[in-house]
């Protein structure tokens, strides 16, 4: 007998946002009594319950495709002309990777080409943000629902420190969490640190996340050396949830200079941890922050540095941002987002064939 729902994803990996999102959708639907299969392009030993795309027949009541990069699973959908629910997490424009890692650029370019071809097969689009939804609508998909990515904030949110008010006049810890990638623009944060150092000589920048492409990390280190701030940039790499929580708690402000964010999980995690946010207004950043952080229309080094300096300097402002951030992050609590996802899928999975 065919299952109610198939979820198609290139690979189920641990510590991967889209994989976790997929698992949570599976859990939710199974709790509601639907049989769910996960269909992958590459199986791992750890996920033996998945089925390979070669065996997928497209006979489930609903097939949900997780789409964020060019993949063989998307190609199979196109080849079989199977109607799908397109869960779109956005695809970083290839231009960001072209000069750094041409293979990755080709892969994301392929994802965008597949997106155009998937539009005509899409029964419903589910977008993480209004920004992503607009892109789907631009492709001619009329039925688009906004439902944020599902993830368990639990392990990454601690008790916000009520007394975390004092920041030394000379210092301050600025945090960014996310892959070290050209579209995330960590080089702009190092540039901002170089200017911030004029006002706060002991300030430092913590960059959490692994490098993709690796050459970008080398250039970041080169930039930090050349600007004389290498000793004050912490390249923390990929960290466990426990260490990530500690970085959130130890930092004074989260800065984001990213030019392309389909959603922005770290922005929400920072707000949930009571960390003030200073971000550049690009893609889905402003709607994720939703007025609870400082959103700048200009990210030149002196602008970012001035905003960071002022936030570090003004205790009342930090308290205000902390309170608003905690409130804003509640919109993305798993209990809320699960319900949104259920509403987005309910009529389709309950429909009788």
């Amino acid at each position: 007998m065919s299952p109610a729902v198939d979820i198609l994803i290139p690979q189920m990996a641990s510590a991967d946002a889209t994989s976790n999102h997929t698992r949570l959708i599976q859990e939710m639907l199974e709790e509601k009594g639907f049989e769910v299969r996960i269909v992958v392009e590459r199986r791992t030993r750890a996920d033996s319950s998945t089925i390979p795309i070669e065996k997928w027949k497209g006979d489930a009541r609903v097939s949900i495709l997780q789409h964020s990069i060019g993949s063989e699973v998307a190609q199979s959908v196109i080849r079989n002309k199977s109607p799908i629910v397109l869960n779109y997490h956005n695809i970083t424009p290839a231009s960001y990777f072209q000069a750094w890692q041409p293979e990755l650029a080709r892969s994301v370019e392929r994802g965008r080409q597949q997106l155009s071809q998937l539009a005509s097969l899409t029964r419903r689009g589910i977008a993480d943000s209004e920004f992503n939804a607009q892109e789907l609508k631009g492709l001619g998909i009329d039925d688009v629902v906004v439902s944020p990515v599902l993830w368990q904030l639990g392990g990454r949110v601690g008790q916000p420190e009520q007394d975390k008010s004092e920041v030394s006049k000379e210092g301050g810890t600025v945090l960014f969490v996310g892959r070290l990638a050209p579209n995330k623009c960590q080089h702009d944060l190092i540039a901002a640190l170089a200017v911030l150092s004029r006002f706060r000589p002991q300030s430092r920048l913590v960059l959490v996340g692994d490098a993709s492409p690796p050459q970008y990390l080398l250039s970041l280190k080169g930039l930090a050396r050349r600007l004389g701030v290498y000793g004050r940039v912490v390249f923390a790499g990929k960290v466990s949830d426990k260490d990530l929580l500690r970085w959130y708690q130890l930092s004074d402000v989260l800065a984001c200079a990213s030019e392309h964010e389909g959603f922005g999980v770290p922005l929400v995690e920072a707000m949930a941890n009571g960390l003030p946010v200073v971000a550049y207004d690009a893609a889905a950043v402003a709607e994720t922050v939703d007025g609870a952080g400082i959103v700048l229309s200009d990210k030149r080094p002196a602008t970012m540095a001035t905003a960071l300096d002022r936030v570090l300097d003004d205790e009342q402002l930090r308290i205000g941002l902390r309170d608003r951030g905690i409130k804003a992050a509640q919109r993305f609590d798993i209990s809320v987002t699960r319900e949104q996802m259920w509403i987005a899928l309910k009529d389709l999975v309950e429909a009788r064939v």
Partner: protein
Amino acid sequence: MSRPESVDTKRVSADFEAEADNRRRQDSEIALLELEIEQAWADLSPSGNSFDAVSHDGHLLDQTASLAALDPQVPIGSRRGLRGIKWAIRKLTYWYVRFLTDQFNLFAGVLIRHLRNLEARMGRLEAAAGLPIDQSVPAGLGLLDDPPEPAPEVVAQVAGLAGSGPCLVLSAGQGALVEAIGDRGIPTHGVEQDPDRAFTGLSRRIGIRTGDMLAHLVGSEDGEFGTIVLAGMVETLPLKDLIGMINQASLKLKSTGRIIVAVADPATRGQVESELGSGLGISPITWRHLLEHAGFDARLEPCANSRISQIVVAHRSANSSDRSSANSSNDSESREP
């Protein structure tokens, strides 16, 4: 801001942007710095001219990471023959070699953890049995890789010996030395490899960075520090690393700077530690010899501590600049065709 909840973030953001423009107008150095940053990034990013140089400028591990990075998302290709070969390579790499490596690393990690737990339990049993602690491996020492935090008397004495700033403490642990030297008004920061220890210090707002101490030293500016303190894990490094560290510290030290070494003498280790740590660490007298060889005037200061009985203090010797300039001139001569 009168009431926190009344923060108008749009207005505040606009105010900050206006203030940044004012700073640019009033301080020409900021505007110049922005131009310099722009140029630096143009040089370092792939569209610039020197990207190839940067690619090979990183540490060996960075380069290895770069070489090992395979992208599983790359399209597999369209020609049947090539497609088959590429598919086989990918399958071999991701399903077998990488899987096996991951499993082996996992197994090794679990094994090490269990051995350490076993060792810690034995230590606790010994303590419960009333055996003197110096007859066994100290709690938490593991396989000689985790010296204890410096005792208060060591901290006080090292702080008193620190010279001008900025001061760098290598293997800063939880930051007691950084804090004590900083309290004397000397700008100080530390580097600690163990994230747990570093986090303990960071949570007390002590200036500690996590990371490799030698890499941090290499990444610092030449002549940046007035004082460099070597402590903690330094006592468990092999001679080759210690010499490398002294050479790097010498480069990063101001001409009037000093190096302070506050580590235990390997001769004071118990039998087990001595065997485990054979060839690791050197005595204070050897430290003095190496520092003198590197152009410092070094002396030994007695310390009233059971582990660290002597602290080595090294200043630039009066003729070291002559010696180093003589060396460099010899070097340059030797490079001449």
